[in-house]
């Protein structure tokens, strides 16, 4: 059991929770993730560790409400308990002095890129960050990212805030102005693919953080397998951070769509049940 001690609504669909898990907080490192299950019938939901505080014994998660599980999680409030909270899982990213590092966060990917930017900054790297969202109301943590970056760029697809366009546009400009020593990108698979294609063109080493369908998160089921450099890797134990130039994104995209129909069914039947409960209450 893990108690939620704070909940912030960052945007209507993106929520932040600070959870009391001293055991996980003590070991957490940038790049790692947790798996949670918040009631008996629930699935095992993987989420990146967005922040952690070993002294306070807390871990912060940020998630976007997309399907049933994340929406249901979004309904929990401070004071509620999460049934199972396992972690930290996966490998941490290498923390060292690279020089000039560009951190790219797309959508909810801003959350997991944040601790990496912070760690890299504290190690003395010069950090340029680029964060982007579809529109202004999906953007969060601009100030937080500003605090851990030397330079921050903001984009929105529709131009409702910051620069209009994709993060890759800004990235190309940054690369041309001052070639980075490393790019770290977290976001939708398509975004990570586009970033990797771009940085490969300019030969800039790139790390991405993958989020495939996953079940156990401890290397036992093989569901989160991805092809990296022609080899089979398990994201949960070999990753989730990989060399972006070597990932087979098309396979990852296909595999992550495996359960679209079922996810829709789960969401619909849950919304139906909720509606019925509401009618019964009224």
């Amino acid at each position, binding site marked *: 059991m893990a108690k939620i001690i704070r909940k912030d609504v960052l945007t209507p669909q993106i929520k932040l929770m600070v959870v009391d898990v001293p*055991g*996980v907080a003590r*070991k957490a490192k940038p790049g790692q993730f947790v798996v949670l*299950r918040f009631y008996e*019938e*629930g*699935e*095992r939901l993987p989420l990146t560790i967005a922040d952690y505080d070993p002294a306070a014994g807390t871990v912060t998660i940020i998630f976007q409400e997309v399907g*049933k*599980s994340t929406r249901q999680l979004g309904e929990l409030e401070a004071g509620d308990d999460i*049934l*199972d*909270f*396992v*972690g*930290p*899982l996966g490998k941490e990213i290498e923390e060292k002095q690279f020089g000039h590092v560009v951190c790219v966060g797309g959508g909810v990917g801003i959350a997991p890129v944040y601790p990496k930017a912070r760690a890299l900054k504290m190690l003395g790297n010069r950090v340029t960050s680029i964060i982007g969202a579809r529109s202004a109301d999906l953007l969060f943590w601009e100030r937080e990212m500003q605090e851990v970056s030397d330079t921050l760029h903001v984009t929105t697809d529709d131009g409702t805030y910051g620069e209009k366009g994709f993060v890759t546009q800004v990235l190309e400009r940054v690369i041309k102005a001052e070639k980075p020593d490393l790019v770290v990108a977290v976001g939708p698979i398509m975004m990570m693919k586009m970033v990797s294609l771009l940085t490969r063109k300019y030969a800039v080493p790139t790390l991405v953080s993958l989020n495939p369908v996953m*079940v*156990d998160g*401890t*290397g*036992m*089921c*093989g*569901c989160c*397998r991805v*092809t990296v450099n022609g080899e*089979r890797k398990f994201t949960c*134990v070999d990753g989730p951070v990989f060399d972006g130039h070597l990932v087979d994104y098309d*396979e990852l995209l*296909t*595999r992550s*769509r*495996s*359960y679209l129909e*079922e*996810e829709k*069914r*789960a969401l619909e*039947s*849950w919304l139906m049940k909720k509606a019925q409960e509401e009618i019964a209450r009224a």
Partner: protein
Amino acid sequence: MPKERLTGRPKMPQRPVKQRITDFDEVPTGLEDWAAVGEARRCLQCKKPPCMKGCPVDIDIPGFVALIAEERFDEAILKMKEKNSLPAICGRVCPQEEQCERECVLGKKGEPIAVGYLERFIADYEREKGIKAPVVPPPNGHQVAVIGAGPAGLTCAGDLARLGYRVTIFEALHSPGGVLVYGIPEFRLPKAIVAQEVNYVKSLGVNLEVNAVVGQTMTIDDLEEERYEAFFIGTGAGLPYFMNLPGENLNGVYSANEFLTRSNLMKAYLFPRYDTPIKIGRRVAVIGGGNVAMDSARTALRLGAEEVCLVYRRTKKEMPARIEEVERAEEEGINCIILTNPVRFTGNANGWVTGIECIQMELGEPDDSGRRRPVPVPGPEFVIPIDTVVVAIGQGPNPVFLKSVANLALNRWGYIETDTETGATNRKGMFAGGDIVTGAATVISAMGAGKQAARSLNRYINDPASFPQWRE
């Protein structure tokens, strides 16, 4: 009580095929009192019982059988539990035909005593009556940690608790039992029974910490700092092997571990009441011939597949699965395609698997395992059209824990190397057993290893000098 006299070994009553393939309820229903007592009375009560030599945990077989024969069921279960804390599990999944029953003298001329059925009978009898909490000795002041709550870890923890140790089991998943909860399906081993036997172990005073991935959430060094004096490692062989064939990452290709974990641990067969989905096509192929393959095939059938086949590269005679389970699978309509080996998976434009390209095999000379080696027959490849594939060709050691311990000696297959007499590893105070030492084996051999390690660990705590290999 016996209303009929038995002339031979009783048949295990089981639910009719038509009914059982529509749900996940247990298939065999267990012996009735009269049949159990009658069977127990066939036992010769041998002076030097050979059956016991076949039992990895040394159960007093003639002893508990005699008590059943006399209808002293309460005493029979006590006798059983002197050696075995998990009888309802063993009575269901142990390969008795290769262990105690193979040695039984009655088996030499006719039919061996149905030791497994009797074990199950007595355990179920107790469960229906409500399991009594055992008497636990006062604490001896020593604290030990067990990593992994599979049969090996649970057995080791139970035995240590009976010796007065303060034992904590650290389990990575949210539910204890290891393969018993994530692998073996409900229709063969109901999870309520696993839970009850786990509760029995807890009632001995064992602490259980779930969601604790040792090597990630904490390390052995952390546990040493928390004053755990010795360790038992029972982390199992949970890493799924793939065949490394083209198309193996297509949608609809599952490892058996994923397929079974979704269905058993996450209860995908109850989707959408449970949130975890599973995809099942009209035609399912399971690759392999062991217990894992049988369980996957029978699960697929119950999940609604119209046709399920097993693709196996040797013949039925070489299948490593229990005969009883192969028979049940065939009764249920599962088709064995033997002497056939996949070479490639084919898919459609959306990335979903559509077929398995195979080649014909024949049996050649025996290999390391003593079984005749399958060799390809020259000839054309042929395609088996399918919508779902389950790859059940074996498992390896999960690396998460192993990588977290510096200089732990492993054997050439990557399993932990131990002293065969004691279960000791090369690291001071650390013992190991079960699938993480032997590779995928059986529930009872894992339990036997847990018992052996408990004895060694007790000796180590009382007399560290008796492990000279660990002297600084």
